[in-house]
């Protein structure tokens, strides 16, 4: 008992779907994040451009990276939960 490698948990029918979805959403966020880094190193002056309400691109993009992370997290959780429920109900998505 003490040497079992891990916790006991049931088979997750939705695992493959969630893994695919997670990778796609990571790719979306990764592109936005990488673009932020690229602007900083390739065109640093652009970050000082005023975008809205007196705020420059650096602040707007920085806040956007935080807000987008949260929004993607909500969407991911919603899609995963919806898919899991199709299995709980006995059907297949």
């Amino acid at each position, binding site marked *: 008992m003490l040497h079992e490698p*891990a916790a006991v948990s049931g*088979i997750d029918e939705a695992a493959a779907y969630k*893994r695919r979805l997670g990778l796609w959403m990571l790719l979306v*966020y990764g592109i936005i*994040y990488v673009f932020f880094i690229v602007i900083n190193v390739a065109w640093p002056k652009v970050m000082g451009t005023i975008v809205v309400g007196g705020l420059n691109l650096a602040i707007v993009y*920085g806040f956007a990276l935080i807000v987008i992370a949260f929004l*993607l997290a909500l969407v991911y959780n919603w899609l995963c939960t919806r898919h899991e429920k199709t299995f709980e109900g006995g059907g297949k998505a």
Partner: protein
Amino acid sequence: MQDVKVLAVIIFVVIVGLVLFVSFYSARRAKSASGYYAAGGRIHWGVNGIAFAGDYLSAASFLGICGMIAVSGYDGFLYSIGYLAGWVVALFVVAEPMRRLGRYTFTDALDAKFNKKSVKLLAAIATLVVSIFYLIPQMVGAGVLINPLLGFPHWAGVVIVGVIVITIVATAGMTSTTYVQFIKGSLLIIFALVIVVALCVRGLSTEPDAGGKIPFYHYKTITATETGGSITPDDSAYAAVAQQEVAVKGKTITFVKLQSGDISTWWKAESDASGLTLHETQETVVTGDGEKLINGAPESKENKLRLVGNMTAIAGDTDTETGPVNPFKFLALIGDEDSEIVLWKSTSFSDDSSSVTVFYPVTVSGDTIVKPGQSFKLEGSVLDRVDFVSLMIALFLGTAALPHILIRYYTVPSQRAARKSTVVAIAAIGFFYILTLFLGLGAMTSASINPLDNNMSAPLLAETFGTFLFAMISAIAFATVLGTVSGLIIAASGAVAHDLMDRFGGLIKSERQKVVAGRFAALVVGAIAILLGIVFQGVNVSFLVGLAFAVAASANLPCIIMMLFWKGTTSKGMVASIVVGIVSSVGLILFSPTAWELYGLNALDAPFPMKNPGIISIPLSFIAIYVVSKLTKPDMIDEDTLHASRAAEAANDAAAAAAAAE
């Protein structure tokens, strides 16, 4: 000041008392190994999400980032962005598989598909290395905090934190740690928000005076004349007695020592179209016989360095105050191209037998503060830019590989709960990191920066709003250290007792033995943390946190990713990846310019020219796992076998539970 101390001590004692009460109350859940290491897997996802925030918003994260923004502007905020972005990797890739594969520790999950002693050993070592590197800045931070809060020396702060944390961890393990983190995380976010609201209501002023409590200090300027290289002040009340040319980052700055009565102080010379002027600075001087002078007079409770940081023009207006502003206006006014902000730099030199450190003001335009460039030289060399990219990669990939974060996935009852708690964590941590920009810029413009230590900028900003907020934020910051250290010690004790003693060494024969071993390991790791916290006094905490992130991203993440997404991964490949990750990341940092400065050597002579090793060590670790896996025999258990094994275990557990019930 005495009132501040009394209130701070009262609030400190109340919060520590609350933490200890939660510990002892939770102790009843820590009888089994599951209870001790994983809080019985019964924590609600909402509580766990905020506890994640508590774990993650460590002293370095909270105090360090606010301090960095206070002195470097937007460059400090880049850490907030990178730290938060790392949670996306945790949610989309790591959270559910870790919950599904693991039991108590990070090693459990990594070894789930191999069941090899070599993987257990190396993963446990990686956990210990990352946890201990992460522990050091937390303990150093405890010493930094306790001095202004309670007046105790650094070592006393470290010992107090160590003893309290060992008590918490040894008493009730993960359950108490979770609730401590929940309380602390909640308080931190609430009070940070309170300060930001108060900041916006107060608005900006060119003469910040902490709401009338601390008169704004006007630094003097004297016109001067240069004759044959010697500078003399035009004001006859002062006499020039010495002059120093100091090289600072490729420029030469002239400082002139002026005598006025019994006091002699160093002034910074600047010349422009209107002529030569001398600007008053602040200074610490340690004389040959060991006496310490502050601004020309002996150091005392009354004579300390003045807090600094203010605007000299707000959107072009001098001698003005804005009154209440909305948060966006607050940022826009600071970042206006016609705003001027006074930053303070420092340099050191020798004057006869005395060691002199001068803190001098540098006025910069507001628009340079709210974009990258004050700290990271993004318009500098290619190497500077690569270094920046390397840091951002390590921050992005490090979070999802921190053992003390990963073990929190075992405290919730299901994979779905693990996912939901990560969403809550992203919301809480993201919101807090947005607040850090306001806290840092608020300290920068409210005369709230201690020139000797910018880590205290957030508590000192709170102090400008009154004694209660200062005492509260300081106590929460202390609780921050307690909570994070607790989580790290749990992770480290799990690596020793569960991974090494039980699963690697086979020395544990019962659940009770495993809990006792975990508590003893917590005691030993806690004692080591106390020692390291004292030894590393004065070392830059951000440097040490960066090291922990780089090691985690290099040693752990490639294994997690490849194990989850490449069926060709072998146990030998995993071992090679961990070894290469640890050796390359730690090795490169030990030969970096930052380390060279710590050794007292010239940073430019460092063999490895970058401060952040991630861009080299992370790909190296991926290459190691790929190449070695290709060269060795596949030994990963396939998903079907794993599921069948898990189903059989579930049936056995159910049968054992039924038999016990009868």
